[in-house]
């Protein structure tokens, strides 16, 4: 780079008009651009500017130097995969922290992957008998370390953390009494589904769920749906009216209670003029709870029904979905017994 004038000196540059060599009929603007660095620039500002710039350069260079070591390689994932293949049990799950860093899905070999923010506050943390947690605390702006700490309050760590490059693998279990005993969503095939009321009708078992007679929409099936931009696996159970859409489960090994979540899908959730939807929970014929979702209340709503007086052993559980008016009530729920 050539230097044409010392910084801080006024520019000797002629105006564009003179450089062009043409007469200028109009007054040129006050265009005396000072030379770079400007003699008028206060020194204090220049000092601050220099310090901030050098700090930014340092920060940026350190960032780029550190980045390769903060990103796992395929070998790191393969090592994790090897570990999981050796140690994972059927019924285990894997959680990714931060939740969006779900590359482990490519290496999970059929183990379900939980990818949800604030996992420690989410019922999914206790969905599996054992939860492998693959954390990346070294990623830029990663909140994995804080989430791991929070998770430690909800679950019991039984193994790890073990490092595979920047990947950190730990194994957690639910606290005593919180372990899942029955997954209603995954065990739908064991249920009897019917429409109750004065004229009860059984729904027909079809591949993957049950088809009821009121229309193509009137089915019960586990599906993935989006709530607050996050995936929830839940039972589509569009209510048909005041008469309940009834899911009856026999021989359910409940010990401590029943937990899960529900919500209305898509734009239906925003409708304020629509009807509420209720989810009635009956255990051994007795109503344990009626959970109500009011109209215009979008998102995923978790519930946890403790049943302290429940005798250990198998129970009959009925889940009833009803509404005064079924228009646009795209209801989906998920339940786990513990």
């Amino acid at each position, binding site marked *: *780079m*050539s230097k*044409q004038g010392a910084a801080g000196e006024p520019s*000797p540059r002629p105006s564009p008009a003179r450089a062009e060599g043409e007469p200028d009929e109009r007054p040129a603007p*006050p*265009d005396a*651009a000072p030379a770079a660095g400007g003699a008028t620039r206060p020194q204090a500002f220049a000092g601050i500017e220099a310090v901030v710039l050098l700090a930014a350069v340092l920060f940026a*260079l350190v960032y780029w130097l550190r980045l390769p070591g903060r990103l796992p390689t395929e070998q790191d994932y393969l090592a994790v995969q090897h570990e999981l293949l050796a140690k994972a049990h059927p019924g285990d799950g894997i959680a990714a922290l931060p939740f969006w860093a779900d590359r482990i899905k490519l290496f999970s070999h059929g183990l379900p992957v939980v990818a949800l923010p604030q996992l420690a506050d989410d019922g999914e943390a206790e969905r599996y008998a054992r939860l492998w947690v693959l954390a990346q605390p070294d990623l*830029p702006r990663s909140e994995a370390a804080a989430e791991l700490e929070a998770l430690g309050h909800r679950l019991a760590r039984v193994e790890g953390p073990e490092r595979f490059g920047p990947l950190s693998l730990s194994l957690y279990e639910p606290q005593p009494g919180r372990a899942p005993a029955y997954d209603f969503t995954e065990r739908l095939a064991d249920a009897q589904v019917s429409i109750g009321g004065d004229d009860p009708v059984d729904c027909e078992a079809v591949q993957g769920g049950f088809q009821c007679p009121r229309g193509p929409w009137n089915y019960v099936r586990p599906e993935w749906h989006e709530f607050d931009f996050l*995936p929830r696996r839940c039972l589509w159970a569009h209510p048909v009216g005041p008469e309940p859409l009834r899911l009856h489960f026999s021989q359910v090994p409940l010990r401590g209670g029943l937990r899960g979540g529900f919500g209305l899908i898509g734009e239906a959730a925003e409708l304020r003029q629509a009807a509420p939807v209720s989810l009635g929970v009956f255990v051994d014929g007795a109503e344990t709870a009626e959970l109500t979702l009011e109209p215009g209340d979008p998102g995923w709503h978790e519930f946890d029904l403790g049943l302290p007086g429940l005798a250990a052993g198998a129970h009959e559980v009925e889940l009833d979905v009803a509404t005064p008016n079924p228009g646009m009530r795209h209801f989906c729920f998920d339940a786990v017994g513990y």
Partner: protein
Amino acid sequence: MSERRKDLLYCLGLAALTFVAMVATERAIGFTRDESFYFFAADQYTPWYLGILDALFHGRLLEHFSDANLQRAFWYNTEHPVLMKVLFGLSHRLFTVGLGWLRPAAGYRAPAWAVSGLVSALLYLVGKEAAGGRRDAGVLAALLFWLYPHDFYHGHLACFDMPITGMWLLVVYAYWRGFGSRRWAIFSGVAYGLALATKLNAFFYPAALLAHWAFSIAPAAWREGRWKALGRTLPRQWAYMATLGPAIFFLHWPYLWPHPIERIGSYLGFHANHVNYPWAYLHQLLREPPFPLAYVFVVTALTVPLPIFVLMATGTLRALGRLFGRGERRLDSLHALLLFNGLLPLLLISWPTVPHFGGMKHWMPGLPYLCVLAAEALVGVAAFLARWRRHPELEQRVLTALSALVLLPALLGCIHIGGYGESFYNELAGGEAGAATLGMQRQFWSNNVSGVLDWLNHNAPPNAVVDFHEVTQGSYVAYREDGMLRPDIRFTTCGGGDTMPCLRSAGLAAYQYMQEFRDQEYQIWNAFGTNEPVHAHFLDEAPDITIYRRPGY
């Protein structure tokens, strides 16, 4: 060698370097949704221009210019003027079809690279002028601009964002020179016509010239002789811009000729009622106005390489500070011009009712001026450091070293992000990983799908039907024509809404991670009966493109 000749060499050198950089790296950049529309539009418009002589020699000139014929030729994509699209088409005809020098997509893109070269040359000229004739400042301005990965990415595309950035820079440079030269003043009108013929932004940016006049010229004239004196200072460039500009705009677009009011109204009306595409910003999905006031500045702070951003900020702050100074401290005319042109595009998009989709491309036309201010700031810091160390004679060496330090992280960023420049986030954001945690939009134009095409080519079964999600059919055709996608792979996409009917026909799905489309990924899981991907493309561990395969497919 005369100074003028030296400048010419610098301009040509920088333009050529920029063009070559685009040629060398363009293959890595997939085709954006809009490019696919413009490729098609280019092919639609070009035959009309090429047919003029033929019509003349065969006595069909009137028919050629008839409304029916113009509608046939220009019916498509009437929401944008045609200058760049016609250049894309002519270039494709010449360099791809005629000479066979460029692959099909590159043929369309070449005019955008030429404009990118123009941007470099103009940045050099403006940067040098602003720094009191220092060539190094001009070169630095160009480097600072192009090492912003988003700029570099947009410089490749057969779209209008870099072209309007270049055309407006041409207007501003000609406008500045026009104060001292009638030829440049006239040319400012021509340049404004070209800008109007490039993109809608050109209707708004003269406000920056008005602000410049009001700040730099009008006050002295007012003190001197009130209205009479004020009238005499009105820049003659305005007259040329107000006459030549609209004339060139009107003449370049034959479609307007038969029904100018109706069709210009329709063009402007489209943009006045433009939809607000959803846009992720700090864990919000911006759908409807009012949009956050700070959006433009936050996104700029999180995407411009940090040292360059600091220089832009300090350069701009210094100019802003001098805006209210007096005497020697008062901002000079050229810097006022730079400041107003630098800030106006950012402020325009900051307006809460203006659609906020598209990321920085919509305020990119302001960045050249901020880079000029940044280059000057860099020169100033080097001078300060040399003086502070009591070695002013070392200023040049300090500047060279400091420039290398400032540009190195940006260069590393460009290399790291490769062909996915629209997804770049800076060191402050924490790259793409940080952007994911911050809840920012990480892609929007579907071109990142280029990251999984190789996998599809090697793993898709023969005649596979692939749901390409946000990729347009035009982009799919372009990928096939350019040999980036196996010709037997078939296309389907379901767009928004219920994707299930379309997914039933697909055996593979290439989902593009965007907050607004999260439900579509889950519909793929439902349709395929699995949520386990078979392949994915990540940027710093953040999911970018995910491929699902129907079991057994």
